[in-house]
């Protein structure tokens, strides 16, 4: 950060002379340094996972859950400031519910996953001044974006993975503090995301099932985690797939345990080989 201290980083409503919004970049830093979160889009559903560093031995095991639901069919996990994540989830739930009230159908994550860029252009052609599509991801991203436009607020200090299964199939997106969002087949946010992404790239993402996904995500989480630096961690994992009938639910503890044991074994084997 060469420009630190030049005075252009005090407000989100002031650009630096080279056109940057430092507060937004700092917010992204807050997200990068928190526990790793992984999202995986499979052929038959999605898997979300988060690495929870055990802050204190006094905390109840398994408590303080981090992955949240926005609707029956949409889950989200964020890395960064916990309270920011909860606030965003609350907003997402309200959006999803108001859509249900209005149209009597569950909200999709994206309106036309097949035609990504057409929404804005078609709206502009119809004379709409403020194009905002009725898609959950867009609504949530626009909300985050609003917090980068005013001097009186601070941007969200989180990177968020939002995933769900709607009528168009499994969907996965990552929203950044700037309010920009991208669709992925798999992604990771938080500490060690680069290594996690490299591992995710090795998977056969077009054919993987959620069951296999659970095993792979557990393996990657254990691989990326550094016990010596960060201490112990808990792995929290949710999924949507044939087993959950389209609902966003916790991966059954037995399956999660199996996945973690397999992950640890794989790690040990790899260590021995080295």
């Amino acid at each position, binding site marked *: 950060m060469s420009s630190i201290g030049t005075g252009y980083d005090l407000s989100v409503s002031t650009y630096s002379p080279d056109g940057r919004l430092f507060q937004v970049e700092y917010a992204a830093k807050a997200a990068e340094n928190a526990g790793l979160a992984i999202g995986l889009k499979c052929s038959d559903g999605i898997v979300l996972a988060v690495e929870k560093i055990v802050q204190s031995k006094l905390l109840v095991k398994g408590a303080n859950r981090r992955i949240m639901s926005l609707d029956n069919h949409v889950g989200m996990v964020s890395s960064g400031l916990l309270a920011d994540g909860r606030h965003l989830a609350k907003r997402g739930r309200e959006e999803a519910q108001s859509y249900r009230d209005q*149209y009597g159908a569950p909200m999709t994550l994206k309106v*036309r996953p097949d035609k990504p860029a057409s929404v804005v252009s078609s709206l502009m052609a119809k004379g709409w001044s403020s194009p905002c*599509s009725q898609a959950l991801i867009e609504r949530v991203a626009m909300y985050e974006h609003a917090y980068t436009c005013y001097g009186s607020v601070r941007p969200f200090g989180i990177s968020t993975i939002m995933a769900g299964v709607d009528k168009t199939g499994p969907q996965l997106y990552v929203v950044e503090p700037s309010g920009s969002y991208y669709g992925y087949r798999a992604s990771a946010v938080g500490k060690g995301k680069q290594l996690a992404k490299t591992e995710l790239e090795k998977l056969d993402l077009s054919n993987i099932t959620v069951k296999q996904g659970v095993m792979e995500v557990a393996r990657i989480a254990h691989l990326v985690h550094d016990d010596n630096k960060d201490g112990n961690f808990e792995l929290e994992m949710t999924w949507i797939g044939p087993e959950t009938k389209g609902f966003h639910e916790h991966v059954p503890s037995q399956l999660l345990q199996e996945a973690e044991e397999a992950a640890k074994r794989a790690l040990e084997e790899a260590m021995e080989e080295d």
Partner: protein
Amino acid sequence: MADMINTVNMERLKKGEVNLGTSIMAVAFEGGVVLGADSRTTTGSYIVSGLQTYPNVRDQAHLFLNLCNTFHYHAQFYAAQHDSRPPVHTIASLFQSLCYENKDRLSAGIIVAGWDEEQGGQVYNIPLGGGIFRQPWSIGGSGSTYVYGYCDATYKEGMSEDETVNFVRNTLALAMARDGSSGGCIRMCVITKGGVRRIFVPGNELPKFWEGAELIETKRAISGKPEISLPATAGEGMVVQ
């Protein structure tokens, strides 16, 4: 998609005059739906096709027009926000909420029918009160009560487009023949993936069914008394309701 509303121009009614009805119908077949209505002018009938509206009857109650405008706004809004036309179910449930929330004021029995990519041909009935019921075929209006039996006896699953058009034509002709509040011509439209096709059946080309026996003249004897005498009391073979 399209929808039909049967309602009445309240402002043109005489005080105390009862609602004069109509007959409307929609039937789903594989690949689309057929909608039909008679053309009596005390009623309103409105067909909305895609995002274009065709008012096809002279008078509409202001409330009913409001309803259609509101709907039209919703449909356009949806299209703008979703970059695609709303599915039939969405239109139907929008209508349903409008009808339910204004059940005190609305007097419209509505059939919403259409075709979309997701579920193909669909028919939704939104009767008074504002409930919503999906049906393979649906009839409405005052004339409909006379033809429930005909529909039950005639409808078969898996009818072709032509069979469905005939079914609608015959049902409406029968309803118009028995219901004094229905009549005139039949307007139909067939909605498929390819678009909307309109069919018009003029009043003199309606399908004909049994219309009563030849006139039985009352033969009177020279005395002027009827030849046939009626039993004074309810006797055998008489069914008392």
